[in-house]
């Protein structure tokens, strides 16, 4: 952090000011002129939290995408289909067994297994041919989307969370003061969204620890830097590839369960989330997991604020962020050259 501040003093100042403003907006009781300027605090806090939780869902999807890309140079455009597959599997499991929590490991394992099959039988055969791999993933996503449409039809599927997670919870954030009694009004927020945020935070931290502190993480980092040297030094790099692909695919499958819980699963969602993870990864920096986290939060918040404050141009806000990042930092915010 100190190094960053020394290298980019102006940026640090701007980031510090933005953080302070955000902290003030989150914790202070808004004076009337501020409410007159940008509307009620409840709306602001809700869209901020929705943005962060949406960002955590994006992070779950994009981190697998960026991991696969960073290590194997494989732009997996079937990632959205893996997400949707996980959502449907989660729905089936939740419907059959009634255990919401069981849906996560099952979706993770089934979709991860599918990822193993893809990596072992398809992508291993065309290693080093980036464009061809990408084209194959497009073909796979077309086929998977149609098979899932065939099997599940065009209906919306919603995975219902268990009763102990449903309903709103009172948080510590003040939205205003009651005019009659002077009591503080606290923000109520759906518990399941908070749980999902906490879970993706845990997964993100776990991934960071696994990548920076374990042996397999060391292999992955070495592979991202130079996979030829890694395989030349006697590592069976194909195993690492299969493991990473399975893990990334499994994460997408798990994200499908999350997405099916707090939104819904329907045809077309695969493309929506594929695009979201593309934009997240482009903004954050391709191949970088902290970048995926940063990009996911930025895009999630931008999308929510966009849809609340400028409903017609919500997409344009997201897109503008992408264009600005590309114009000034083509490798993404945290990407390396």
């Amino acid at each position, binding site marked *: 952090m100190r190094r960053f501040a020394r290298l980019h003093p102006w940026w640090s100042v701007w980031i510090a000011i933005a953080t302070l403003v955000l902290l003030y907006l989150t914790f202070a009781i808004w004076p009337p002129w501020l409410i007159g300027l940008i509307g009620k605090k409840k709306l602001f806090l809700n869209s901020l939290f929705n943005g962060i939780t949406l960002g955590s869902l994006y992070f779950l999807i994009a981190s697998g995408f960026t991991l696969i890309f960073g290590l194997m*140079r494989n*732009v997996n*455009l079937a990632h959205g289909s893996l997400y949707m597959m996980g959502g449907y599997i989660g729905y089936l499991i939740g419907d059959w067994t009634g255990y919401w929590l069981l849906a996560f490991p099952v979706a993770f394992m089934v979709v991860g297994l599918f990822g193993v099959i893809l990596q072992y039988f398809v992508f291993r055969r065309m290693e080093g041919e*980036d*464009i*061809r791999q*990408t*084209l*194959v993933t*497009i*073909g*796979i996503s*077309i*086929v998977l*989307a*149609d*098979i899932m*449409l*065939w099997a599940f039809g065009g209906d919306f599927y919603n995975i219902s969370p268990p009763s102990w997670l449903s309903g709103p919870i009172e948080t510590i954030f003040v939205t205003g003061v009651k005019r009659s009694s002077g009591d503080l009004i606290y923000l109520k927020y759906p518990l399941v969204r908070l749980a999902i945020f906490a879970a993706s935070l845990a997964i993100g931290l776990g991934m960071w620890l696994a990548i920076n502190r374990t042996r397999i993480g060391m292999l992955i980092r070495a592979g991202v830097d130079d996979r030829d040297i890694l395989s030349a030094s006697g590592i069976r790099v194909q195993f690492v590839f299969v493991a990473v692909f399975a893990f990334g695919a499994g994460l997408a499958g798990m994200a499908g369960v999350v997405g099916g819980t707090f939104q819904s699963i329907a045809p077309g969602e695969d*493309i929506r989330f594929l*695009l979201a993870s*593309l*934009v997240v*990864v*482009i903004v954050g920096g*391709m191949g970088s997991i902290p970048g995926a986290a940063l990009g996911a939060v930025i895009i999630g918040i931008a999308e929510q604020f966009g849809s609340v404050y400028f*409903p*017609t*141009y*919500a*997409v*344009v806000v*997201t*897109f503008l962020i*992408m*264009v600005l990042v*590309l*114009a000034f930092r*083509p490798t993404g915010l945290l990407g390396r050259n």
Partner: protein
Amino acid sequence: MAQVVTTETTPQSRSMFGRIPAAYWLFGAFLLVLPSFASNFVMYQIFGWSFILGMIALSLMFLAGYGGMFSLAQMTVAGLAGYVVAICGTSAITDISQNWPWYVNIPAALLIAAIFATVVGWLAVRTEGIYTIMITLAVASAFFYFTRQNYVLFNGFSGFNGVFPPQLFGVDWRHPVAFYYLSLFWAAFWYFAVLYVSRSPMGLALQGIRDNPRRMSALGFDVTAHRVAAYTFAAFPAAIGGILLTWQSAQISPGTAGVGPVIDILVIAVIGGLRHPVGPFVGAFVYVILKSFSIDILVALGLGGERFQLLIGLGFLVIVFWSPDGLLGLWAKLRDLHRRDPLIGRLVRRL
């Protein structure tokens, strides 16, 4: 593997036209006289649509085949041109359409499409290879969502209907025969234009950049400028295709340039083959045939009639897997098989 490919030696005395093989003449004549025996459906829906999709895929083929840039935004460029024609020209949405004459709105459409493509190209060429696919896909989907949400200019979800071609020279250009010749003319025009540009200094430089950007840069070529210029040039066949597509269905809506059609254009170009400008047209013809008759094919296979996407997806996978050069590559392989000498395994020229 080293291959000996013997080139056809042609006497320089033969004229330019004499060097074109007879089969090409026959095929051209066939396309010209097709309206005398084909039904309206075949002319308008099969051939007209193939030419249009072929033109849009041709612009992708130009970028991908000669420039190594897989731009998924070409359908978006086409869609934008169609939108401009609907907004500036006449449509059933009289609140928005400006009713400008055709000699204003068509150049406007081409110009705006070219500017848009240049900006997209400028953004996309900052990165390379697979990154280009990601960025152009993001651009294409942003355009789709934007047109779907914007009601002031793009009329949102429903788009524009009643967009008809102008009654130029007293001809109804939506009549199957007239439309067939119109789309044939433009398809042929852009086919030869792309062929010409690919052999011009600009096209050769572009192919050099595709093969080794660093070396071309060292030779003094401006790599970025050539790539952006390629995007600008490729905007024109796509824009013409987009305008014709709008006239053919008399409507344009966000779905015209949605993510599905964007991917379809890539599928068409890859199925046909990215080596030669004829590839996109072959791919488009196969795609249109499959799309028009998929119900019969699927029912014959014992599947439901609506599994078209499955069919096209599997076909695409098969092509990418076994013949990266598309149907053209398959054709070349078959031809070489026939020409290959069974003993030495090399290509020989039959006398």
